[in-house]
């Protein structure tokens, strides 16, 4: 797919699901916190300079850098 949206494209407070087969693109630490393909996420906060981003999944608020967020494809709910 050409125009696949990523976490970086989410609007504030928008909810989405991490697309299938994204395991390779999600950092190991994030996977071990419970964020994998099919996990429902929400863009919670954006740092003042637009980077890093803070996503929410389950009861976690986790910050990741824009460059990592751009690699993780999402699907709308």
């Amino acid at each position, binding site marked *: 797919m050409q125009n696949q949206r990523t976490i970086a494209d989410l609007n504030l407070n928008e909810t989405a699901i991490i697309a299938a087969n994204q395991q390779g693109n999600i950092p190991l*630490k994030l996977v*071990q916190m419970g964020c994998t393909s099919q996990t429902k996420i929400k863009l919670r906060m954006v740092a003042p300079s637009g980077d*890093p981003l803070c996503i929410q999944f389950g009861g976690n608020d986790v910050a990741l850098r824009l460059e990592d967020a751009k690699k993780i494809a999402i699907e709308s709910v």
Partner: protein
Amino acid sequence: MKKLVLIGNPNTGKTSLFNALTGLNQSTGNYPGITVDKKKGYFSIAKETFELIDLPGTYSLEPHSLDEEVVLQEILNIKEPVDAIIYISDATNLRRNLFLFSQIRDLEIPCVLLINRIDKLEKAGIEIEGSKIEAYYKCPVVFTSVTKKEGLNSLNKVLTELPNKCNYSSDFELKNKGFEELGHLKSIKNNYWAWLVAHQKSTHKLFHKEEQIEIKQILQSVNYNSEELLKEEAVDRFSKIDILLETTVKQTTTDNTISRKIDKLLTHKYYGYLIFFGVLFFIFQAIYSWASIPMEWIDSFFGELSVWTHTSLPDNRINKLVSEALIPGIGGVVIFVPQIALLFGFISLLEQSGYMSRVVFITDRFMRRFGLNGKSIVPLISGVACAIPAIMAARNIDNAKERLITILVVPFMTCAARLPVYTILIALMIPSNTAYGFNLQGLILMFMYLLGFVSSIVASVVLHKIIKENSEANFIIELPSYQIPQLKNLLHTLISKTKSFVFDAGKIIVAVSIILWVLASFGPGKAFNNAEIIVENTQVFDESNTYDDALAAHKLEHSYLGYLGKGIEPIIQPLGYDWKIGIGIIASFAAREVFVGTMASIYSVGSKQESGKTILEKLRQAKNHTTGKPTYTFAVTLSLLIFYAFAMQCVSTIAIVKRETNSWKWPIIQTVVMTGIAYIGAFLTYTIFS
């Protein structure tokens, strides 16, 4: 005695539990090889004594930082095996917390699952069926709220009933047939141990020599992608946890609205930074104004103690050693305690409340521009107190390159040890007066702090370009919900950190004071040993040049220290310094604050009537022996300030950088480069202003 370890995710109340169980009966040591603090404590229940080791918080058994590496090192300890594990989890986020627990459980070491923070459950709309979880994992489950002191009795009961052997067997499946070979080794207990060994090279050194060789051989014949397999493991574990939670946990709401509201303010485009600078401003104001009162007490206490010992002990060399070297040396360490304790206190408050991770969040982008990391902000800020704990605080930076740069630039920050030097030099340079309503001395001091910060940032940019080390570690941090800090935890960190400063840095400072005193009190040849006769025969005495003063000055000039100072005089003359300042600079390479004490000794060793005169007055009157003009001119003082801002003058910092980078290369480069910058900077300053 049973050996227990305490494991859990960060921000689950682990520290509170450790403090609640062990009280003040704890100690901090070091892990061999790596310098992560090892927190140990003892407690007993019904005559049975337990040793409890507090491990750094981690999300998985795969270490992402140096701090986390310790966890594996401790629980796979073959020489002193762990008897049982206390696993603490956060009731409001069981899914993530059970991931690490499921790994721990597969180790087949008896363990207890603590579900903590149950006081938050009602508000979060969560209901947990503990008995079903207990039945599923076959491990005792205890509900607690450590801060509310709930459930601790049940925990004690469970601990006394702990089995010696694990009463279930793990069903962990190796995803690669090649790893099965590892299971034949005696020290590898089961599949999961084999899995950890296969994926974590750092565990190999824990095994016996022969086994290490075998492990290496087995793994060489297997072809695998560690990261892929570990992700598969995580997905498997979470799918099992999800099935378990479906039947055991009922959750109605998920949002912590209070935290959200606070976040909106604290990470706001403008207010976020404004509040951050406000907090910093408050901390520094507090450190300098609150600490100054106890510091004065300490100062006068040690001053009087030294006079008292001098007059009440018989007048001999031991008397002088104690009253002129030992007591002022110890005093010089203790005087920093109020400032350092306050700083550690504030940092602990910021960390406990959850604010620190917000600071990391809003500063990461800015810091990254300079090759640093949002997490570098903690070491940099701590560097204002002391580079030693600050460099140690860099351990939780996952990215190796960003961590190295942080370690290398922290010593540029204006540490507390520079403060007494700056204070006295600034007072020498300009009289205390106000201009346009500002205190001029305070303004210069602020400039020096800014200079320290700017230099560390510039140094980072340069290092970022030079260092070619590649490291792929991602920046992933949790933003935990806000907590009200616990006073007990605050006091515990404050005491243990201050203690380690006093004893680690203190040893060196006291040793140096004694060496300096010896060097200043003894000298080679006739010029020193016949000082009395020489002075009497060659000088005329009057009120401005008493016999005692002249003798003291003559002795110092011809002592070992005097010759040392004169030896480096040609090198420091271009900076405007004489041999007396040279002595101060030599002494400062042990620790910067030694400068003030050394100057005091140089201008007063041996003279007894001078107690009324302050060091400042003495320095003002000092004359350069070649020019005959006052030594401390504006240009010299400013050049000294610049020298002290940049020079790497601290043995303890050099030692800690060596330990943290595990090489002599970086501390040597750091020392040479920083001191080089100091020399050039001081030379330029002196040339321009004189």
